[in-house]
């Protein structure tokens, strides 16, 4: 088993270096360079050259590439052109906000999704089950930016129940700590709804399809005959068998979660790394774009590593097999 973990770690490392390489070459092979685009009025050619020199853009591409890799592993990404502060600082402020959003959405999606999936698996073919399944598919087909707008239209503009964007109220500074937490939660509801419930369909479906064969298996029948309560049978024993499938799906869903966060952050003016990336792209803030993209890519790679290791832990068969076999 340690051999498998080592291999998987090595694979992740290769993947991460590959991702960083991709980010670098994508940005650098783009037509035009960042310096051309900043301050077109105030700068003459000599001034631009000076900035190029300072940013190291006059060096050979390969040298710049290795410098970029070095920067990544040291966690130093230079200065943001639009914020005038170290990129690391800007990102460090935005990342927790995105993690709050994505993590909450993730929890909502999975808890709700599995509960619904289980109820469908328990009563296959019932009308309610079919209805829930179709509902999942419909939700899956709605554009999330549009769901966001509709929610804002109905619940914020029309009823005034929830704020239409941002993370805190303008008067948050004058609130007590308790009220501030409530205020934060209040702002969190609509964005999490969009990000969490919009993509619940696949979770429901996988929850159901990995559970239903288990529920008709012999050992469940035996357990039922032994008088184990149905609730325990499902939540403790059967779901455990479905774990590897669900963990894998959870790992696979992460890139989409962060991608979806860009949309949600844009619609709800949520000041996280997604909105930051969008603004950085519009202002051609190259150091920030590169660092932001690299950050999200690496986060996704690490999280799917965790999902895979979790899978390994949840399924004893994998643990026994894997040592004799290739990682992928």
């Amino acid at each position, binding site marked *: 088993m340690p051999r498998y973990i080592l291999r998987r770690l090595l694979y992740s490392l290769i993947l991460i270096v590959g*991702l960083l390489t991709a980010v670098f070459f994508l940005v650098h092979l783009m037509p035009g360079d960042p310096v051309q685009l900043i301050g077109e009025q105030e700068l003459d050619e000599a001034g631009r050259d000076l900035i190029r020199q300072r940013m190291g853009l006059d060096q050979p591409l390969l040298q710049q590439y290795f410098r970029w890799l070095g920067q990544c592993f040291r966690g130093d990404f230079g200065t943001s052109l639009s914020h005038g502060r170290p990129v690391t600082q800007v990102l460090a402020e935005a990342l927790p906000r995105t993690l709050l959003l994505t993590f909450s959405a993730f929890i909502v999606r999975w808890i709700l999704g599995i509960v619904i999936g289980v109820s469908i698996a328990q009563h296959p073919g019932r009308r309610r089950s079919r209805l829930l399944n179709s509902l999942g598919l419909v939700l899956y087909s709605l554009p999330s*930016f549009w769901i966001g707008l509709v929610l804002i239209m109905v619940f914020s503009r029309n009823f005034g129940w929830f704020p239409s964007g941002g993370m805190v109220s303008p008067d948050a500074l004058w609130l007590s700590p308790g009220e501030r937490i409530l205020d934060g939660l209040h702002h969190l509801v609509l964005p999490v709804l969009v990000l969490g419930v919009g993509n619940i369909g696949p979770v429901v*479906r996988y929850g159901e399809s990995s559970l239903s064969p288990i529920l008709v298996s012999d050992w469940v029948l035996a357990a039922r005959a032994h008088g184990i309560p149905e609730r325990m049978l499902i939540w403790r024993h059967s779901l455990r068998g479905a774990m590897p499938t669900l963990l894998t799906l959870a790992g696979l869903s992460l890139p989409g979660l962060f991608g979806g966060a860009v949309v949600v952050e844009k619609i709800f003016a949520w000041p996280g790394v997604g909105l930051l990336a969008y603004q950085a792209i519009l202002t051609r803030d190259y150091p920030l774009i590169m660092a932001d993209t690299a950050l999200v890519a690496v986060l996704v790679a690490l999280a799917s590593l965790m999902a895979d290791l979790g899978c390994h832990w949840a399924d004893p068969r994998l643990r026994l097999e894997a040592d004799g076999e290739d990682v992928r």
Partner: protein
Amino acid sequence: MSVARLFSSSSPSVRHGSTATTGGRRDLQLGLVLVIGGLALALGAGVLSPEEPSALGASGLGMQPPSSEHLLGTDPLGRDVLTRLLHGGRFSLLVGWVSMIVSTLMGTLIGLAAGLGPRRVQRFLTLLIDLFISFPRIYLVLLLVAVTQPSLMLLISVLSLSGWMAAARMVRAESMMLRDREYVAAARGLGLSPWQVALRHVLPNLMPTVLVAASLRIGQVILVESFLSFLGLGAQEPMITWGVMIAQGRAYLLEGWWLTIFPGIAISATVLGYNLLADGIRARYQHGEAPTEGGTDRD
């Protein structure tokens, strides 16, 4: 590893009998109706629509709520929303279909090579697929679209190049299952080249999978395209698309709700059609739970 295993034959998920198949048939029918209906409406937009898409309101400027004269209301310039809705589908469908074809072809070929090729190729391509999947695609798309001048060609190429992975992964997983079947071994034994085996003998058996991937992909492309157009990074103003229409309605969210609601319904119904189609094909032609789109999110 785990992905391939999840989707391999040992995965313990057999759809239970008859209810699933009738449900599948209904999905297929409804999906086909939506898909064909959408195509027909978009192609026939010129004939069907009550007014010229850019004709300013004859009955005066200004937004009007839905009425018998303008079934879906008019926009702030007095233009008929229904007319614009009919024309707005063309761009999305064009982008969706073309980039679906490109990325499905790419994905199928890469997936076949990753499932059947020599070991070294398999490993490399698997890494490549993982690399592209882990990369936050929306960042890539935004970057490419924002830095260069937005154009139809660019949009199509970006969406094609960023969308082949799901097909590749599904084809890879399934071809690995078929690899050891007797008829494949027989074809190999007859001395056919690896590509002949892959294309003539394995691929035909993968067609349902490929169709499912393709159908799902169109839906996803339409969603991404509409978001980009909404941001002003896809289609530009004189061009009418659903995303552009929603962006225009954003300033009138409450007092002009019809500007936001109807284009959104059009997008959703179109995407739902392709998703239902994918589901229907899956239920009809595949045994067991098929490899899905590889991820839960739309982008």
